[in-house]
C-alpha cells in the first residue's frame, strides 16, 4: 500500500518532469486541412492545387498538394510549420455566400474533458466549435468560417490564432494552442482545368499568382478577364513566334517572349481558366463578299464567310484567278487571334479581346472592322496582289457566325 506521503512525492515528481520538459499537459494544434464548405456555404468551393514544378522556373506542373496543407512544427531545428501550402476557394457571389471550412486536428487532454475550439482572425472569432469531448489523442474538428469570402477575386493572407477553451475541472480555462498563417486564393468561379484549348490547365501557386494577382479586386466577369488580358499582353513581346509548350504556361519560362497573337489568346484562355473564367480562342480571317469558289479540290472551308474560326480551324479564303492561286490576307498577317468570353451582353452575347494589339471589343464584327482598318485586306498570289478588299460590313451578320460558338 502506497502511503499518502509517497503519493504526494510521486505527484511532485510528475509535475517537475512536466515543467522541465516544457510541455503543456496534452493540448496542441496538430494540422489543418481546408475543404469544401458544403451546401449553403459555397458547396464544392475548394479546389485542388499542384506544386510549382522544380524546373522551368516553376511554371510547370508539380505534384498534387494534399491535405493537410498545414502541419505544426515538429522535431526539426526551426520553429516554422512543417508544412504550409496555399489553398483555393471560389469567391462569394450575389445570393451565394462562399466560406472557408477547415478540418483542424488537435490533441486535447484530459480525455473526456469538454472543450471549445476557436480560430481568431485578429480580434474576430472566425471559427468556433463548442461542446467537443476530448479524446486525449488526435481528433478532427470541422468548422465553417463565420465570414463570407469576398465577392472579388483576391489573394488573402489570413493568420488564425487557435485557442481551446476547456470547461470544468481543474484545468478549466482558455489556452492558446498555436497560430497558423494561410495564403488563400479567391477565384472567380470553378476553375477550368480540362481541355483549355486542348490542354490540361492545373492550378499552381505560380499560375495563381499570375492570374488571380492580375484580376485581384475585380468582381465582374468582364473586368476580371480584362485585367488578365492586360497582364498576358504585358508579359509577352512585340514580335511573332511559335507556341510549342504544353502546358502553355511554360512559355513564361523561356527567354524569348515573342509568340503569335492567337497563342497569346490561348495563354489568356489558360489564365482565365485558373480563375474560373471560360475563354474561347478564335481567329478572325479576312472577309469578302461574295466569297469566290475555292480552287478545284481545295478545302471548301475557304469558301465560307464564317469569319470567326476556332483556335485550330482555318477559314482562310483561296481563289483561282488568272491561272494563279491567291489567298486573302491581312497586311502582314494571315489572321487575327482573339479570345471570347460569354458575358450575356445584348449585342452578340460575348466580350472579345485581341491580346496583341491589346483591345477589348463588344463583338466580333467590330473587332474585324477595327483590325482591318490598320491591317488592310488583300488577295495575293503568284499573279500579284489585289487592291484593298473592304470588309463587307453590310454582309456580315450582326451576330457573328462562330465555329463551335453559341450561334
Amino acid at each position, binding site marked *: 500500500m502506497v502511503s499518502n506521503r509517497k503519493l504526494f512525492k510521486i505527484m511532485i515528481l510528475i509535475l517537475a518532469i512536466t515543467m522541465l520538459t516544457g510541455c503543456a499537459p496534452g493540448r496542441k494544434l496538430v494540422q489543418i486541412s481546408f475543404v469544401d464548405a458544403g451546401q449553403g456555404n459555397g458547396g464544392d468551393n475548394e479546389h485542388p492545387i499542384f506544386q510549382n514544378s522544380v524546373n522551368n522556373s516553376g511554371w510547370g506542373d508539380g505534384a498534387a498538394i494534399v491535405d493537410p496543407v498545414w502541419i505544426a512544427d515538429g522535431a526539426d531545428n526551426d520553429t516554422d510549420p512543417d508544412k504550409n501550402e496555399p489553398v483555393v476557394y471560389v469567391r462569394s457571389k450575389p445570393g451565394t455566400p462562399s466560406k472557408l471550412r477547415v478540418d483542424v486536428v488537435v490533441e486535447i487532454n484530459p480525455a473526456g474533458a469538454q472543450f471549445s475550439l476557436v480560430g481568431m482572425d485578429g480580434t474576430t472569432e472566425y471559427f468556433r466549435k463548442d461542446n467537443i469531448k476530448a479524446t486525449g489523442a488526435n481528433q478532427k474538428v470541422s468548422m465553417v468560417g463565420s465570414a463570407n469570402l469576398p465577392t472579388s477575386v483576391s489573394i488573402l493572407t489570413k493568420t488564425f490564432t487557435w485557442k481551446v477553451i476547456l470547461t470544468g475541472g481543474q484545468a478549466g480555462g482558455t489556452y492558446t494552442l498555436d497560430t497558423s498563417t494561410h495564403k488563400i486564393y479567391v477565384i472567380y468561379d470553378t476553375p477550368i482545368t480540362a481541355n483549355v484549348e*486542348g490542354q490540361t490547365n492545373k492550378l499552381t501557386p505560380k499560375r495563381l499568382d499570375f492570374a488571380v494577382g492580375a484580376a485581384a479586386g475585380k468582381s465582374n466577369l468582364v473586368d476580371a478577364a480584362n485585367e488578365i488580358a492586360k497582364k498576358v*499582353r504585358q508579359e509577352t513581346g*512585340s*514580335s*511573332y*513566334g*511559335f*507556341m*510549342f*509548350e*504544353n502546358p502553355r504556361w511554360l512559355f513564361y519560362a*523561356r*527567354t*524569348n517572349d*515573342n509568340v*503569335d*497573337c*492567337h*497563342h497569346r489568346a*490561348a495563354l489568356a484562355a489558360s489564365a482565365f481558366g485558373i480563375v474560373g473564367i471560360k475563354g474561347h480562342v478564335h*481567329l478572325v480571317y479576312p472577309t469578302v463578299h461574295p466569297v469566290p469558289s475555292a480552287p478545284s*479540290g*481545295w*478545302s471548301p*472551308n*475557304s469558301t465560307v464567310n464564317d469569319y470567326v*474560326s476556332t*483556335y*485550330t*480551324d*482555318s477559314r*482562310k479564303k*483561296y481563289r483561282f484567278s488568272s*491561272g*494563279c*492561286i491567291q*489567298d486573302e*490576307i*491581312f*497586311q*502582314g*498577317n*494571315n*489572321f487575327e*487571334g482573339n479570345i471570347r468570353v460569354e458575358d450575356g451582353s445584348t449585342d452578340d452575347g460575348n466580350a472579345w479581346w485581341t491580346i*496583341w*494589339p*491589346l*483591345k477589348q471589343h463588344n463583338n466580333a464584327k467590330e473587332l474585324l472592322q*477595327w483590325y482591318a*482598318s*490598320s*491591317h*488592310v485586306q*488583300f488577295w*495575293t*498570289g*503568284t499573279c*500579284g*496582289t489585289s487592291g484593298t478588299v473592304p470588309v463587307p460590313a453590310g454582309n456580315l451578320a450582326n451576330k457573328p457566325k462562330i465555329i463551335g460558338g453559341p450561334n
Partner: protein
Amino acid sequence: MNAEISKNPSRKVFLVLGFALSGVCTVLMLSGCRSAESVSAPENTPNAVSEAESLQSQYEFESLPDDVQLIPRLEIELPYGIEEMVVWPSSEYIDEHYATDDISDQLPPVYPERAMEDAKPIVPGGVSPEAAVEEAEWWFREILKEEWIPHDLRERLIPIRAEAAQWSMVIGRYQTQGHTIQVSQTRWGIVVVISPAFEGNVDEAEEFSRMIFDQFFTRGEEMITLDGQSISDAGEQFQAYLLDETRLPGPDAIENWWGWIAWYSDGRSIAIFMNKRIAGQQHTPTPDDPWF
C-alpha cells in the same frame, strides 16, 4: 515525281518560274505572306521514349571539318540567291561572323502605314542569336525524323551574322551512320543537304531523292508523291526539280513547309530548298525579314 517542262533545256523557263516566285515573295513581303489551312499549334517536342529515340540514343553524331562541301552549288540562279545556302562557310568566315551579341534593337520592325496602338508589324524586327538558334532547332525537329537529330543539337547550331540581317543564318551539320546532314536556315528559308551512306547516280536522281525523302524527312511519305517539274538546264552533273503551288494538292501542302522552291541532286547528295511555312503561323516569314 517529275514532269518535263521542256524537251529543250531552257534556262529561261526556270528563270521565269524563279522570277514568278520572286514576284510572289515580293508580294508576300509587302502584304504579309500566306499561312495556314489547318492551324493547330505545331508540336514537335519529343514524345515519350519512342523507337526513334531509342535509335537516336544508339547513334554516334560526329562533326565535319569546315572545308568539306557536300554538294556543288547550282550554276543557275534560284530566287533570292538561295542556291548559295548549300555552301558551308570556311572556318575563318565562321569565326569572324559568329554572332554573340544581340543587335535586335538595331533591326526594328516595320509597322503598317495606318497602325493602331500596339499594332503587329508587317515585317518583324530582329531577334537575339539565342532566339534564332532556338527557332532553328525547332525547324530541324519539324523537318527531320527524330532519329537523325542529336540530343545536343542546340550546341551544334552556329549563328552566323551577315551584313544584311535577312541573310543571317543558323547552320548546323553532322555525320551519323555514314549519312551527313547539313541544314542552313535564314529566317525565311531552309536548305537541307543530305549525303546518305547509300549511293545513287545522277540518272536515277528521282529514285535517289525519293529514298532520301522517305528515310530522313518527317513528311517523307507525302513528299515522295509530289510532282516536281524537271529543270532541264541544271547542268549535266545535276538533276533539278521545281514545284510551285499550282501543282500542290491543296492548302495543307502549301502551308506545311513543302510549299518549297526546288531540289537537286548529283546522285551522291541532295539539296532541298524550302521556305519556313507552317500551319498556324500568324505571319509567314518573307525573304526580307531580318533575323539577328
